[in-house]
């Protein structure tokens, strides 16, 4: 039994979650607070993966990042191959899972009363200080939710990954694609192992998430 799709999926999910948090925290903070007219546009772009079929996203990414695409020459100059490679999977998954990380963060950030931040400001805390010492601690449960959603969603991703990564064992063949592969070849036993593994893993993660999130939420904003 080849376990490499499992390891690849987990490696991909961890990498993508880390990037999503780095990207999502400032982006969600901006979206939650800004009055800029650009907000609606940015929010729509972030939410696109929720409504578009993953294959559409994967198709355009393939064209964009491919050797003949608009970014092709640039990537070539940087000696970076994004299509049919692990880095390509990361790029595709980051875009595809972005709303699952940004939306819970944005909602948590919006719950923080303006007065808390104004108090912190008059007490001498600058913008970064306020974000690190007030916003983040108050958003811990939202950030955990966001990270878990990003991780789990990346783990289960199929369409984008198939379009941009293909099905190269050990390089781009993640669990979801391995399942499809085995089913196509009528190897149901192997498909079962991968599927049941994902099912159990997702269930455990969600149960942990919901049981810890409730306890934490009760202690806020009294």
């Amino acid at each position, binding site marked *: 039994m080849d376990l490499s799709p499992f390891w690849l999926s987990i490696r991909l999910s961890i990498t993508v979650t880390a990037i999503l948090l780095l990207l999502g925290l400032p982006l969600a903070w901006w979206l939650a607070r800004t009055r800029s007219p650009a907000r609606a546009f940015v929010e729509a772009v972030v939410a696109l993966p929720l409504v578009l079929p993953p294959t559409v996203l994967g198709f355009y990414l393939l064209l964009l990042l491919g050797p003949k695409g608009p970014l092709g020459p640039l990537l070539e100059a940087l000696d970076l191959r994004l299509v049919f490679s692990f880095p390509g999977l990361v790029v595709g998954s980051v875009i595809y899972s972005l709303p699952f990380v940004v939306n819970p963060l944005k909602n948590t950030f919006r719950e923080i009363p303006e007065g*808390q931040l*104004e108090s912190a400001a*008059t007490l001498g805390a600058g913008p970064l200080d306020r974000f690190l010492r007030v916003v983040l601690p108050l958003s811990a449960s939202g950030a955990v939710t966001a990270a878990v959603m990003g991780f789990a969603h990346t783990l289960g991703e199929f369409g984008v990954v198939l379009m941009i990564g293909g099905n190269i064992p050990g390089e781009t063949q993640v669990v979801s694609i391995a399942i499809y592969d085995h089913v196509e070849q009528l190897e149901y036993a192997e498909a079962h192992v991968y599927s049941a593994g994902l099912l159990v893993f997702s269930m455990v993660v969600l149960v942990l998430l919901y049981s810890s999130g409730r306890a934490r939420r009760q202690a*806020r904003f009294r």
Partner: protein
Amino acid sequence: MSGLAARFELERGAFTLDVDFELPARGVTTLSGPSGSGKTTILRCLAGLERPRSGSLSLDGERWFDSVGGLDRPPHRRSVGYVTQTAHLFPHLDVRDNLLFGLRRVRERAPALSLESLAEPLGLRSLLERSVANLSGGERQRVAIGRALLASPRLLLLDEPVSALDLAAKGEVLEAIERVLCDLTVPCIYVSHDLREAARLADRMIWLDGGRIVAQGPVRDVISNPRLPFAQDEDAESLLIGKVTAIDQEAGLACVAFPGGELWIATTELPHEAEVRVQIRARDVSIALERPKAISVLNILPGTITDLTQVKASPSQVLVSLEVGQSRLLSRITRRSARELGLTVGLHAWALVKSAAITK
């Protein structure tokens, strides 16, 4: 130049704010006026939380805001203590860490106060290790005031800090505020609707209406200004500030000398030479044209009538302003008495104040 100088102009929909004022380097100024007159907006402009369309602001000669030069120092670099109706304590920190939040961020100079020095007057000692989630409303406000003071502000802004509290908590927090304000060495602005709070805490008063300053000056002048709504109030009062000059232990009375005369008030608990604020309700002051003899009233003060104003809420009554020395006394009497006595501006008259009616 020491003290604060501010000039703000701003529009918010139909509301326009246009104020220009100065504050001395220390002392408490009450900012009063009807709802929507711009009190909170002024405080927010002072704290840097709101940007006026034009104007300027400087403290002790240091510019914080100037629309001409495009200068706008952000709130975290202004050293302003700002306490509102809602304490806005940080729920993820305990009481001690809330209190120290600002203190730990004091830059460029040594903190003016220590947690130790505020624990007593604000009654914080038993709260320090507690979580902020289970503090009472009064406790939350005391922590919020302590937190603001520990940040060593150069300007303290209190925006109705007790108005959301129940009566008992209000008294407790007001006493705490009184204790810390008397040692304060920076200017303080205290927004309040309450006449008695203002009379008790403030040295100066600014009366705001429709985004403009209608009156400002020493609190005893503004509070008893017959043209302002305080004087029209059912509980309108004059404020006399004086010193205890004699105590009659046997009678249970203290004599207070104020600019313009002496008053006997029903207390012996005050130390000799102590400064006292005597609040006299306009309803408790009667007027006579001649000095009465054989009367129970102890305080009979000579004065000159400077103003007669109709009480808007009750047509049967008028408000008489008397100049007693350099102080002003308000008297609320019936219109009929005023007519029968022939009271007019400029007339010499006697104000009669029962000692039993005076509150300290």
